[in-house]
């Protein structure tokens, strides 16, 4: 009832009836092609340059980054970061196959639970789907292997990202998502640095409701890819 009334009111405003079929077909074509608009030149770089730009932007937005040579070095990088920050060594980790394949027992101090995050978790480990160099943004699509709560509830989020998954612009990350996941997952978070607020006297403070800090462990697999 309300639906038809609202659509009629919109068409009355636009001074026409429902779109003629040829015009509707054209719009359906536009939806299917989802054409890109102008992409800023700043991310149009050879891949190593995009990786560097990603890191620079991430650090500008108050996240920290450790670059490691291979996956085997991830547990060491995580343990060292936690020790340096004086953080607890029990972690909740996204049950992603790539994270599960890491030999975490190389650092026996780390105690890992797999699953979604709870309010009591201090540190979470997430698998990053793609990195976007343009603004140092991480794309985190929800999935059984990549729970959304991992991005939100812990004070500290550690994000594991392979350098080969860094692209220049958002559009390239969306293309990866369409190609690999087939469609929109329930939730896609684009995260650029730790949570913050400027609501008090319009002055930036880090650590609002989401993670107070984000640490990215960047695995340099680009040469191999």
């Amino acid at each position, binding site marked *: 009832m309300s639906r038809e009334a*609202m659509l009629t009111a919109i068409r009355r405003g636009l001074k026409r009836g429902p779109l003629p079929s040829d015009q509707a077909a054209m719009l359906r074509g536009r*939806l299917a092609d989802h054409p890109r*608009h102008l992409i800023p030149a700043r991310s149009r770089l050879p891949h190593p340059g995009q990786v560097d730009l990603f890191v620079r932007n991430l650090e500008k937005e108050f996240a920290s980054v450790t670059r490691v040579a291979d996956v085997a070095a991830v547990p060491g990088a995580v343990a060292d970061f936690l020790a340096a920050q004086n953080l607890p060594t029990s972690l909740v980790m996204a049950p992603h196959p790539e994270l599960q394949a890491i030999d975490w027992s190389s650092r026996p101090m780390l105690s890992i639970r797999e699953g979604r995050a709870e309010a009591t978790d201090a540190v979470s480990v997430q698998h990053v789907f793609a990195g976007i160099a*343009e603004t140092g943004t991480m794309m985190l699509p929800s999935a059984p292997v990549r729970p959304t709560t991992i991005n939100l509830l812990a004070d500290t989020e550690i994000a594991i990202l392979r350098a080969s998954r860094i692209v220049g612009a958002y559009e390239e990350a969306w293309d990866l998502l369409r190609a690999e996941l087939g469609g929109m997952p329930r939730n*896609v978070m684009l995260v650029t640095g730790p949570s913050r607020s400027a609501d008090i006297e319009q002055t930036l403070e880090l650590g609002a*409701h989401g993670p107070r800090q984000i640490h990215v462990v960047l695995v340099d697999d680009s040469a191999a890819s």
Partner: protein
Amino acid sequence: MHVPTSSAFKQSATEALRNAGLQKALGRSGPAFIARRAAAAANLPEFEQLRDIARDIKNHALANLDFYLETYEANVQKAGGTVHWCATAEDAREAVLKICQNAGARTVTKGKSMIGEEIAINDHLEKHGITPVETDLGEYIIQLRQELPSHIIAPAFHLNMEDWEEAFRKAHTDLPPDRTFNERRDVLTEARTKLRAKFLAADVGITGANFLIAETGSSVIVTNEGNGDLTQTLPRVHIVLASIEKCVPTIEDCTSLLRVLARSATGQDFSVYTTFSTGARRPGDLDGPEEYHVVLIDNGRSGMLGTEFQEMLRCIRCAACMNHCPVYGAVGGHAYGWVYPGPMGSVLTPGLIGVEEAGQLPNASTFCGKCESVCPVRIPLPKLMRHWREREFERHLSPTAGRTNLGLWAFFARRPSLYRLATRAAAMGLGFLGRRTGRLRSLPLAGGWTAGRDLPTPEGDTFFARYARQQREASRQ
């Protein structure tokens, strides 16, 4: 209910100018917003081109709004969500209440939503025994103080540290009274702790939407705090409040708009959390809401389509116009008397609550044009305010003195030789009256104007006379 007080703008503005706390807040924050946006724009060489693109995308979406909304709904349904079409604020309040009641909700967390303010959803829920909790830090204190936001992206723009401390001490009586608020960080930490418990307890989460995407049936929110994400992830039910003009065709269209949104708003290259939500929890998911509802609201927008105000529907609510507005900068947001302040509010508010109530707002402008010059979707705000002034005049809503003066002026303006004669006489007359001091302390019919300043006395010729002389001299050379 927020009863609009826009018709009392003049009085509210006068009070605002005398409010020391407000003036302190405005003086601190206004220039910062302007500098941040300028830096962000300067950092992106393509920024001006991106503004054209953003304008064109929104124009295309509005011209085909019926088609895109139907497509959007079909894709929401495919993802297991429901769209509730609501023509009025009343319909929307009822739809939200029904969803909450069906969910057996006792508390509801809320992300920041201007359409939520517009339909006054909190009051409605409270009236029916459901407790809404604002979780955006700025909205949280606004709710504690029981007032309206004074800015569309910085609700607590008008407040200072001492106001935060006062509100928190009054509300959080379970905490030690001898705790200190030395830094902003102390406020933030206390809010984080208090609200974390609310996030976990809520039965329903309500967010707004910066965009709806027809291609995928997604709603998009943009925040820095992460409160919107906790609101839509933890409770069993997620309700999205969105007005019809938020709908854009594709992810790529949305992405292009996002490139100008944060830069225009806070001067960030990108907000911390830009989140796309599409339907309810999928098989195997370990978290996320089990129900996903979109309350799609018209509430006066379709009536602006096809009129001179259609361009206003491009607005993406970045607040650049109010951040750059000398009138907003002087009186703040509350003087505007309803939900939307600043230049965008001066155009939108008369469209939504009527020019009879809000006719003073489009008059509260110096027409300096700064708002239009920074609008990321290039809305000609001064032109639209001028349209409202015309409507106000046509409908005899403007004050009698103003109408009489304008009529008098029009009489002369239509008779050029008489006009020149009259202006010459006026210039000479005023020059004679102020010949001693060079200024006039008061003028008949313009007492309001001279109450705050003197009028310098005219010196010599009128503009027309000087112009004519210059032309003559130029032609001789």
